[in-house]
Structures are given as C-alpha cells and as structure tokens.
C-alpha cells in the first residue's frame, strides 16, 4: 500500500465517521427539502412539458443562494455552488420530468412519516435534494474545493431519450470531474453502468381496403395479440443478460366495435449491444412479415436506443459509494441504469446513480415515500460528493 493510498483511505475514514452526525443534523433541516419536494411536486411536469417546474427550480436555486441560475437552450435548469479552487466541477443531477400527465391531479398529502402523491418518488424528492443542496451544505457547514454544478434536467424519460442531460453534457464548458444522478427511488440503488436499451413503438393499422371477409380477418386488438405472441417466441440469450418488456398497449374505445388502430410500446434491455442490434432487426422482420401475411400496416419506430456503458465495479468511485452506503446503514443493490447516468458516462465522466428513500406504489398516483430513510439517503449523497471533492474516488 502506497503512502498516497494510505492517506486516501484515512481521509475516507474521516468522512465515514462523520456520517452519523450528518444524519442527525439533517433531521433538523427536514423542512428545507420537504417543502421544496412538495412545491415542486405539485407542479405537473410531464416529459416535454417541464417548463413550469423548471421555472420554480430556478427561483429556488436563486433563493437558496446560487448566484446566476439559468435555463439552458434545452430547457434544463442549472446553477453553480462555487468551490474554493474552482478548477473542476462535480455534477449533481436530478431529472425534473415525471411519467404523469398534466391532467393528473398533482396534490400531495404530507403525513407525519410519509408523503404520498404522483411523482413524489420519481422524482420530486430527488429533484428537491438537488435544489436544497446549497441550504443543506450550509446547514452542515460543508464547503467544497470543486464547483458543484446542480442540474435539473428535462426530457429524460420515455421518448425524450435523455435529450436534456445529453444536450447539457454536450455543451457544458467546465471540466467535469465526476457526476452523481439523484433519484428518489429506491434507497440502496447503486448504478454505475448504463444498460443498453432500445425503446420502440409498433403501430398496427387496418387499411381502408382491408378484406374483412378473408380467412383470419380481425380487428387491431386481435392482430396485436397475435403479434405479441410472435414477439414472445423470440429466444432471448441468458448471457449477455437480456430482457424484453411490453410496457404499453392502446387500442379501441368501445365494447362492440373492432378498432382499426393499435399501438404497442416495448423496451429491450441487454448487457450486449450486439443483442440489441440483432433483436431490433428481428422485430423489424417480424413486423414486415406480419404485415404482408395479414394485410395490415405494421410499422416499428425506434423511439430511443442506447449502448451499454459504465465504469467497473472496482472503480474507486463505486468502492467509495459502497463504503459510504454501508456506514449509512444502507444495503447496496446493484442496478444498471437506463436513465441519466447513461448520458453522463457516455460523455466520458465517471458517475453513479443513488436512490434516497424507500418507496411504495412507484409510478402510481398514490406513490409514497417514507421520510425516516431520507436522512441516511441524503447523508450518503453529501458524503459521496465530499469523497469525490477530496479526490478519493479517482483511479
């Protein structure tokens, strides 16, 4: 063991020893970030419609002491907590969009030990942690050498394909040391790799000249059902690990009329990029063949496609994160990300995604976060930022 390594280990030990104090101290600042979570969470913020929530983020950044928070050309809000040296920066990001539409009633209920409402876990509480970070650091009397870039990124989910985070990272002019993506769900989450993924939508239309008298004639629902059966017969390799998920199906609106159109949304994730390419080709072929055999119009659109990326398990950033989680009483669960971490790592920056608290009914309107685990969840985030700042997470 070199002297430099010994010094780093000792510095990390010092940070780890401070975690219990941080957890206790953060309890006293509870209202700071819970208020932000509620105020932000009650503003609808569907992907591509985050403008109102982002304006509040900028206001809160300003109120929390950031000097010149801005909204960039992609719609992201960002601001900087200046470090003492300011030579490089650490990125702390949380996505500001939500799976809930603007029509959903965004009313949160605050109980003694929980908050319930649409999007509180994914990702109002994660966003609030980033927004309140300047206040929390003040409260803990923590200063950084590096600048902290706080980012509330838009257009992260679904069709948006990480557009906001990618746009920011493509254009940011400061050297970024490392990054941490903050999610409300779920405490223990440790993502250090971005999983290769393909998201697509298959649209099936019954043409006007469709021969309803022919053998096998049917409406869109029946056809999509048959198509799904064919897709499910595609063998998926065990190695590299691969998965196909059907995440959405829409067709029809009545009891007795066969619909003419149907849509199927799916996601393929795989640890092998070649598997994703191969499956994309197979799906296109199946759709084409199905179209010709049934006289329907079947089109597959690739909505988003990402390649595998990541840092190794042995990377000091991952190692430090695991030690911090352990000290904070959090059991790590390795979970490859399909979210913003993908954009961060592909832009060449080491990074991890952390979850803040325990969650029930994720992505349902009665999504609920528990408040007690939040203090350890925030302490792990802040301690990890300190470790990065101290150069303890570098190879």
């Amino acid at each position: 063991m070199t002297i430099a390594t010994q010094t780093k280990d000792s510095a990390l030990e010092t940070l780890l020893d401070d975690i219990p104090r941080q957890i206790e101290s953060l309890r006293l600042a509870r209202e700071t970030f819970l208020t932000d979570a509620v105020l932000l969470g009650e503003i609808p913020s569907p992907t591509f419609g985050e403008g109102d929530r982002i304006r509040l983020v900028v206001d809160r950044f300003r109120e929390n002491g950031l000097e010149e928070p801005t909204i960039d050309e992609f719609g992201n809000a960002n601001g900087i907590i200046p470090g003492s040296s300011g030579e490089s920066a650490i990125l702390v990001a949380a996505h500001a969009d939500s799976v809930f539409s603007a029509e959903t009633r965004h009313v949160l209920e605050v109980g003694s030990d929980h908050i319930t409402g649409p999007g509180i876990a994914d990702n109002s509480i994660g966003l609030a942690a980033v927004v309140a970070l300047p206040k929390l650091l003040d409260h803990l009397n923590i200063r950084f050498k590096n600048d902290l870039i706080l980012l509330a990124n838009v257009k992260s989910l679904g069709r948006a394909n990480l557009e906001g985070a990618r746009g920011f990272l493509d254009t940011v002019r400061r050297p970024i040391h490392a990054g941490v993506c903050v999610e409300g769900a779920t405490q223990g989450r440790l993502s250090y790799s971005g999983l290769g993924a393909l998201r697509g939508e298959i649209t099936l239309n019954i043409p006007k000249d469709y021969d309803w008298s022919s053998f096998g004639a049917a409406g869109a629902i029946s056809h999509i059902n048959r198509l799904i059966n064919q897709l499910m017969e595609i063998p998926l390799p065990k190695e590299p690990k691969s998965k196909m998920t059907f995440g959405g199906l829409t067709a029809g609106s009545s009891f007795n009329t066969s619909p003419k159109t149907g849509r199927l949304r799916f996601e393929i994730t795989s640890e092998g990029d070649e598997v994703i390419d191969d499956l994309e080709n197979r799906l296109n072929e199946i759709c084409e063949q199905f179209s010709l055999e049934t006289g329907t119009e079947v089109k597959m659109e690739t909505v988003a496609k990402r390649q595998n990326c990541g840092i190794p398990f042995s990377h000091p950033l991952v190692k430090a994160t695991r030690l911090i989680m352990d000290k904070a009483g959090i059991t790590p669960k390795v979970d490859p990300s399909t979210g913003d971490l993908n954009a961060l790592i592909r832009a060449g920056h080491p990074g991890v995604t952390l979850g803040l608290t325990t969650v029930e009914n994720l992505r349902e309107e009665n999504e609920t976060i528990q408040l007690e685990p939040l203090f350890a969840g925030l302490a792990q985030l802040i301690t990890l930022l300190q470790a990065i700042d101290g150069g303890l997470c570098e190879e």
Partner: protein
Amino acid sequence: MSDEEKNSWLEKNTFHHGEFWDILKLVEEKEKKGLTISLCIPTLNEEKTIGKEVLILRSELMERYPLVDEFAVIDSGSQDKTLEVAGNYGADTYLASDILPEVGDKRGKGENLWKAIHQLKGDIICYVDADITNIHPRFVYGLVAPLIKRDEVQYVKAFYDRPLNYSSGLRPSGGGRVTEILTRPLFSLFYPELTNVIQPLSGEYAARREVLEIIPFPIGYGVETSHLLDLYHKFGIEAFAQTDLDRRVHRNQTTTALGKMSFGILQTFINRLHAQGKINQIPDMETFYRRFEVEDGAYRQIVQEVVEEERPPMIEIEGYRTHRASLSS
C-alpha cells in the same frame, strides 16, 4: 357611496398577491413598524391536509423568511391525527377547550378563531382554513401585506379565481354558491357598499388585534358575515382590503351542507339588521333548519337545530384583559 367612490375603493383596496412577492421586503417593513404576526389554523379532523399546510407555511414564512412570529393550530377535538401531524411539523397545537376554560367550551370554527385572540400574541392575526389542498405562502403574505403597508387598513379578506363559465374575454368573478345566492343579494339590499367585497365568505383573512378583540364572534357559520357587518358598522368600508390569491382548491360541499350554512348566516345577518336598526319588529327566529329527504319514494322532513351562538367581544372577557395586561407589563 357613489359608483365612482366604490370604484375608487375597489381600485385602492384590492390587491393581487403578486404585488407582495418580495417577502424579504415585507419582513423589513414589519420589523420597522414593530409589528408581530400570528398565524392560526382552526381544525377539526384535517389530518389529510394539515401536514402540508404547516410544513410549507412554517418553512417558508418562519424559517426562510421570518414574516410570521407564531404559528398555531387550534383544534375542536379531532378524532384523527390532526394535532399529531401539525405538531410533528412544528406548529404550536392547542385544544380550543383548554383556552380560557372559565368561559366554557363551544363547538365551532368561530370558537377557535375567537380563542386564538386570547392565546396568540401577535398584533396581526391571520386565519387560514385547514382544507386547502394547493396551499402556498401567498395565502398568508397576500393577506398580511396590506396590513403591514397601510396603517388605515384593519381587516383583509381573501378572494380567489373562481371562474364559473365564460366564453369571451369577460369573466364573471365571484364567490361560491352561498355568496352568490344568499350573501350578495342581502348585501345589495341592506349594505350595498359591502358588495365590493368579492368573496365575503372566504375563510382566509387577516386583521389587527385591536379590531378583533372588540367584535363578537358567532361560533358557527356566521362568523365571516358578522365580521364584515360589525367592522363595517364601526369603521366603514375604508377599514377593509381584499387580496386576490388566485386559485384555491378545497373540498366541495354538498348542497345540503350549504343550505345549513345559509341558515346560520341568515340568523347572524338578521340579528345585525335588527341590532343596527335596519329592520324593526322581527319575531323570535326559529333555530330549526328543515329540509327533505326521499327514501323509497317517501318524503321525510329532516329537522336539525342550528343555533348561531355568539361569543362576546374578547375585550369584555376578564381573563383576556388580565392576560394582555401581564404581557404588556
């Protein structure tokens, strides 16, 4: 008051909360004038909404900006976790029955508002209902700001954007069903100046202690109406101001509940008309509210007693006078 004067009052004394967005400036003005502000939320079984109200109002208006000096929840004996949740987020919690026990305990929102005058210390008391689901700091700073900025204003009433139905640029602006069907017609008949108050029954208002302690408080539905009538009688329309707080989302009341509420308001109203010599020779009023229900095709009359009991002006209570004297000494 001529139409011109009415318009002038509307123009001069009607605000929008957006005018007071700079809370820090309000805090400076409040401190300069040596004012203290107490916030009171009257509750009865409000565990679903009270946590959020206390969290947001306390965090924003006491910790981030020290506009409010005291934050109390005064409860009528909730059976749920209202007080536990409110206390958890830092509100001072009281049972109305524990305040001024020597005057007894009556059940009703007005009782909690009245006892708040005794319990709270502020020069200005701001009352906010507990059932607001879209709570925001504007519900408080929008109401106390005119009192901080304008010494002649004694009582500030909230009004909200309640679009009824509109298809062009002209949008009717008004209150809820009871306001439009009962209160506004009555005001138009007997107190035309008070028709300038856009939502006379709104549950959010702020006032100076000096005026709250000299008026009686109906403990039930008539409390908002009596405040307007009594203060108008004493000080005229210039004592009032009103602030547009934009949208307020709350529980919708059934028509039956509104009927009962209207019955209580009417009692208060007619009592004032009589006391102020606007009508004479009225017989003793019934206190039974009667309505109908249909069950299996048969009509049945439901009779409920609704008595608009009143608390006297707080200044007449000896315990209060002693308490205030001890505070000032």
